């Protein structure tokens, strides 16, 4: 399974839907998309990982890189993930403290809106 990326705007927040495997081979494509979005002025991002089948440390690095880019513009990058096998790698690396991780896109958007 390759990586499939789509994005759309909901309530002023850019939602990135990721499907497939994020690894050392595919992660550069996600990195490019996040950079393009930030360069395009999108600083409020939600990455929906509900259809991600595999995530490794390269993918984590890309997500952290994206987070740093949006924070440089006082933005945010939240994640949507309920899969235990994906959540586990965030726990192992301590990144659950770094990202807001939500159960659904609507919840992520609502949480972001309530913080504004």
């Amino acid at each position, binding site marked *: 399974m390759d990586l499939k990326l789509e994005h759309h705007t909901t309530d002023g927040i850019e939602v990135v839907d990721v499907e497939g*495997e994020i*690894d*050392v*081979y595919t992660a550069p494509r996600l990195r490019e998309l996040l950079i393009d979005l930030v360069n395009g002025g999108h600083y409020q991002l939600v990455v929906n990982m509900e259809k991600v089948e*595999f995530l*490794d*440390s*390269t993918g*984590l*690095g890309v997500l*952290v890189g994206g*987070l*740093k880019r949006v924070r440089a513009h006082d933005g945010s990058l939240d994640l949507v993930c309920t899969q235990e*096998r994906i959540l*586990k*790698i965030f726990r*192992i*690396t*301590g*990144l659950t*403290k*770094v990202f807001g991780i939500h159960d659904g896109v609507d919840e992520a958007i609502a949480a972001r809106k309530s913080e504004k």
Partner: protein
Amino acid sequence: MPTVEMTFTPLPAHVRTARLVATAVARRSGVPEALLDEVRLAVGEACSRAVEVHQEHCPAEPVKVALTGAGDRFEVVVTNTDVGDGGVEWPPQPAADGQDPAALPAELGLAVIAGLADDVQVSRNSDGLSIRMSWPSGAPAA
């Protein structure tokens, strides 16, 4: 003798193949289903790291992976050519208190491996630098 041995050109695209083969041999060796995701992720991390080292220092040299399913442990050894880089710090050191948790360690992949495999050894021998990982396995599948 390993159950399956493979070598692959150090390209990121081949890491997925190595993961798939390792997971298939682990399943065949009787590793419980609940542990297969850990095997897949840990092998991917070790291979990604080896590919990165080879791409920087010796892109013509293949990465070696040995999978052994005999006995009560399933063992994976990923070996990269010794590039004389001083080796790796094992076990990886946790982030110091007060450090920005978003500041990822240089060897994040090793930190992931340490969190996944219950038995990991990093050693240097004539073949190069090896990461040896193992998981419990039951009776091999018929």
